[in-house]
């Protein structure tokens, strides 16, 4: 709640002049990740907040200039570690745009499915943690419990729970099998129930509503000026979603809506995320029901995908192709050019500005990190709020420090 009460004239002149400095983070349970805020406070009212970031700066973009397109997928996983498959889809979408590779229909559907799973996984954590920070522990447990089912899907499809490293140039690591589809069915049954539970706990909860409604209001003009995207922009009335506005992969095939709100406060950001999970469930349902057959990766004659182990060991073409791609002095031809390509990540526009020089390794892999761009909203949103509102606003922005600092 904006602390306008503290501006009343009976507050003494002296206390208005004397502001305190409060250090928040970098190790603080409510920041969730490693980031620091230096707050100038007048009583409980925040006069100025200065974010200090870079604690998790790991040189991911520099590493991208020294790893091949398939190797770098392990690094992009670690950027937004709440939704790793979405980073992989974004990265290889950029590479495939640059190399002009047209994916097979089955692969497009698989990437849509893993991307939407990542979106659900991200929003579940964000919505759950929003409640946790405000004291609602049970809602967080309902949300987090459901995330385990998504980790089970990752494990089944790729062998890794946390950082699947699942996509490859021109395809994915392994095709979906029946066990993966079975696990996704399990999630599709459990998720609506979990969302219902979370909403029942929070949507009519007086404490939750009072601490979220009208807090951290972002106007539509500011959202555009601050380059906000994703649920944060959509909660402020910017109905901009790359899945609709610049359709990629198989998104034109699906019937789904883009939820938006106009209030722009913490609660509408929470509400938009809850609704987006329902829309993602719709997309996954349609994708599973209409999953095309046929090959998953582009044919090995196209020289891009790494052949699977069976093809490598049992056929001459596969062995040659594997050798050509793996040996350091060989590989695919890349253009000497640059391209910007973006997809709709859970947090907003997740793009790559990719420059190649003809070799196997990118010259420049600039990430457009939504967390970085959204965190500069924070001093603007938190001004004149109370200290207790910091966790509400921070939680609603969904800052992932690994992506923030890269």
């Amino acid at each position: 709640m904006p602390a306008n009460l503290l501006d009343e004239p009976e507050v003494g002149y002296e206390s208005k002049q004397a502001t305190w400095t409060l250090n928040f983070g970098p190790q603080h349970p409510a920041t969730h990740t490693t980031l620091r805020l230096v707050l100038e406070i007048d009583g409980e009212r925040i006069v100025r907040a200065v974010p200090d970031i870079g604690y998790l700066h790991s040189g991911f973009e520099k590493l991208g200039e020294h790893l091949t397109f398939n190797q770098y997928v392990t690094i992009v996983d670690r950027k937004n570690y709440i939704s790793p498959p979405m980073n992989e889809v974004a990265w290889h979408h950029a590479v495939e745009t640059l190399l002009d590779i047209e994916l097979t229909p089955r692969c497009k559907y698989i990437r849509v499915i893993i991307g939407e799973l990542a979106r659900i996984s991200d929003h579940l954590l964000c919505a759950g943690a929003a409640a946790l920070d405000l004291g609602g522990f049970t809602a967080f447990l309902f949300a987090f419990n459901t995330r385990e089912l998504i980790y089970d899907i990752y494990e089944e499809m790729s062998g890794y729970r946390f950082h699947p490293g699942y996509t490859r140039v021109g395809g994915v690591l392994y095709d979906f099998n029946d066990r993966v589809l079975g696990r996704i069915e399990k999630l599709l049954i459990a998720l609506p129930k979990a969302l219902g539970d979370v909403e029942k706990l929070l949507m009519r909860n007086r404490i939750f509503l009072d601490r979220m409604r009208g807090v951290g209001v972002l106007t539509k003009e500011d959202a555009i000026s601050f380059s906000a995207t994703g649920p944060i922009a959509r909660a402020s009335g910017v109905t901009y979603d790359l899945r609709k506005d610049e359709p990629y992969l198989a998104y034109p095939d699906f019937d789904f809506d883009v939820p938006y709100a106009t209030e722009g406060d913490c609660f509408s950001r929470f509400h938009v995320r809850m609704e987006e999970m329902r829309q993602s469930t719709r997309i996954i349902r349609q994708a599973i029901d209409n999953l095309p057959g046929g090959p998953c990766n582009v044919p090995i004659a196209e020289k891009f995908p790494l052949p699977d182990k069976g093809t490598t060991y049992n056929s001459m073409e596969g062995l040659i192709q594997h050798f050509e791609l793996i040996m350091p002095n060989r590989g695919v031809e890349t253009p000497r050019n640059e391209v910007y390509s973006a997809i709709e990540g859970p947090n907003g526009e997740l793009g790559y500005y990719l420059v190649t020089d003809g070799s196997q390794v990118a010259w420049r892999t600039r990430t457009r990190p939504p967390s970085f761009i959204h965190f500069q909203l924070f001093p603007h949103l938190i001004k004149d709020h109370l200290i207790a509102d910091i966790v509400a606003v921070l939680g609603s922005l969904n800052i992932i420090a690994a992506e923030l600092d890269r």
Partner: protein
Amino acid sequence: MTTSSTTSDPSVSAEADPHAGTLGKLAGRFGDGVFTTSRFRDNLRLHVSPARLFELLSSLRDDCGFAFLAELGGTDFLGYPGWSRARFQVHYVLRDLERNERLTVLAGVDEPRPALPSATPLWEGANWMEREVYDMYGIEFRGHPDLRRILMPEEFAAFPLRKDYPLRGRGERHNFTRLTRGES
């Protein structure tokens, strides 16, 4: 809470050049010689000199409807095969939210003392992105309200994403002073 279900048909954009209107408007506004265009895949790029960059960006924002700065970043082309333009390049990806049009503005900037006009008067969002370019490449943005390092520590002397900064080595840890508890 409401939902919008406006679907945009991807086949429409394939027939005609989606950028024709913008390019026509810009040609009328600037004439020849201010910018050159190039295309690759679905990207339209406008190459512009640092001197006319701000003018082009503000015209794109105010007259052509590109109200949204989607992305800003830098690249170092030192040692790039066959490169004849300026060493550094800063890209601005702009988006028209009404017509779903996207274009990239590229500005080359050379040593010594690479500097560009800041885009912060046009977009608040440019603030941190320009600070990151400054931090990583040492490109100054004139007129920026708060041009400090953002990811690296204040006392860091090098620009780590430049191509002449090595990936491996001893690191920088020995260059930093150690604070004791009493000093902190």
